[in-house]
């Protein structure tokens, strides 16, 4: 029996193994993903993002508890950075979630970014599909600690929660483009700290500058102290309101279309690049080209055109 069949029968080890093969880009994993794809699309994907240290993992931990209390099965993808120098990583988000380690209704997987930009890892989408096919009701994706521009989560998750804390920046930070634009819900965490109300006021002002029509979703702002469990109920309420908003209007369909588009283009790009690079590396030509470029014997545009012409003929 293949991994996909075993996963559909509830085999945890098979799921964990396929996740590894996806992450390691083992070619056979693609065959398994194909078989799982028809069984996906039921899970609600929730993204948690924000700067390092704002409390994403702790918040995720409390959300797991809350969803479990509702009897929902929860899959978690927790992403931490890969070292650009050694390729290694310390994946420590789990530390805050270990109270759920032995709960059979919870599956937590730590992922390293492995060089991907954007706050997710390259395999995040596929991993979310696997959790979905395993029958998880909720898939929680905790991004790597992000700065201003890592907005990929917004393409994968139906609801994006951006976590911040008091004192991170002034009101100009709040009107810049990027991460603040993708939030459906803001959580001002560590709200017992000085300046929490000011942060809420600044976010509110930023939202007031936006033009939200009758039918638009205006992001909600929640104050929380995740460590003590304060504000978690409000957050849950905000999440279910956003979910209801999406299912009332065209939101869910739009999101599904957008997610499919982004995912397909990404896979296509990867497969194309993979096929082209494979040939170059096998013949040792890549190094030749790079040496030629460094010596200024040719230009990268001409070589790229030439290589593409050759590789795509077949």
């Amino acid at each position: 029996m293949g991994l996909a069949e075993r996963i559909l029968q509830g085999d945890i080890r098979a799921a964990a193994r396929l996740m590894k093969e996806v992450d390691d880009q083992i070619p056979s994993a693609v065959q398994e993903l194909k078989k799982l794809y028809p069984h996906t699309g039921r899970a609600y994907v929730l993204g948690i993002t924000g700067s390092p240290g704002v409390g994403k993992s702790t918040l995720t931990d409390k959300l797991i508890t809350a969803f479990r209390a509702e009897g929902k099965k929860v899959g978690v993808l927790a992403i931490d950075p890969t070292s650009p120098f050694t390729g290694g990583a310390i994946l420590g988000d789990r530390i805050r979630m270990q109270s759920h380690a032995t709960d059979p209704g919870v599956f937590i997987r730590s992922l390293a970014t492995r060089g991907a930009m954007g706050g997710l890892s390259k395999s995040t989408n596929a991993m979310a599909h696997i959790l979905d096919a395993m029958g998880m009701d909720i898939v929680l994706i905790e991004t790597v600690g992000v700065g201003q521009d890592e907005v990929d989560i917004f393409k994968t998750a139906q609801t994006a929660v951006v976590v911040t804390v008091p004192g991170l920046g002034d009101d100009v930070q709040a009107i810049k483009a990027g991460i603040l634009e993708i939030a459906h819900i803001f959580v001002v965490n560590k709200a017992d700290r000085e300046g929490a109300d000011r942060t809420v006021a600044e976010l509110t002002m930023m939202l007031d500058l936006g033009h939200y029509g009758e039918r638009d979703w205006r992001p909600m702002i929640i104050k929380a102290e995740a460590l003590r469990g304060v504000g978690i109920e409000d957050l849950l309420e905000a999440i279910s309101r956003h979910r209801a908003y999406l299912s009332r209007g065209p939101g869910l369909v739009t999101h599904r279309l957008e997610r499919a588009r982004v995912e397909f283009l990404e896979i296509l790009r990867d497969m194309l690049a993979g096929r082209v690079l494979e040939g170059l590396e096998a013949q040792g030509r890549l190094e030749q080209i790079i040496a030629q470029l460094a010596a200024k014997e040719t230009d990268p545009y001409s070589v790229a055109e030439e290589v593409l012409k050759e590789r795509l003929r077949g």
Partner: protein
Amino acid sequence: MAKEKKLRILVGKCGLDGHDRGAKIIARAFRDAGFEVIYTGLHQTPEMIVSTAIQEDVDAITISILSGAHNYVFPRIIELLREKGADDIPVLGGGIVPEEDIPKLQAAGVKAIFGPGTPTTVPIDWIKDHVRARSAA
């Protein structure tokens, strides 16, 4: 380049033992060796370790232990792995384990114990030598 298999190694601490400096040093050394380290933090039960190892599909479990509970913790982890059909995952130990206990632990299935003062390169080389073979199989 992209096709290289990454080794995923669990680093954990069990029971009431609150001294995690050694675990952090080894986690850092593993990271620098290019491993993906799943760090569980303190106060784990053998059940938590095994369940984590399975969900994360790790290539090896390393437990740092200084409390003297090794004679319980290691055999229990191995027993649970066996119950779940996951005893192909090697279990390694580090920390303070009296000489006379080592043969017993090895008989119980612990693959290696690294005592105080072991250079971090020793467990790293052990893992590279023994674990690559496992994931290739």
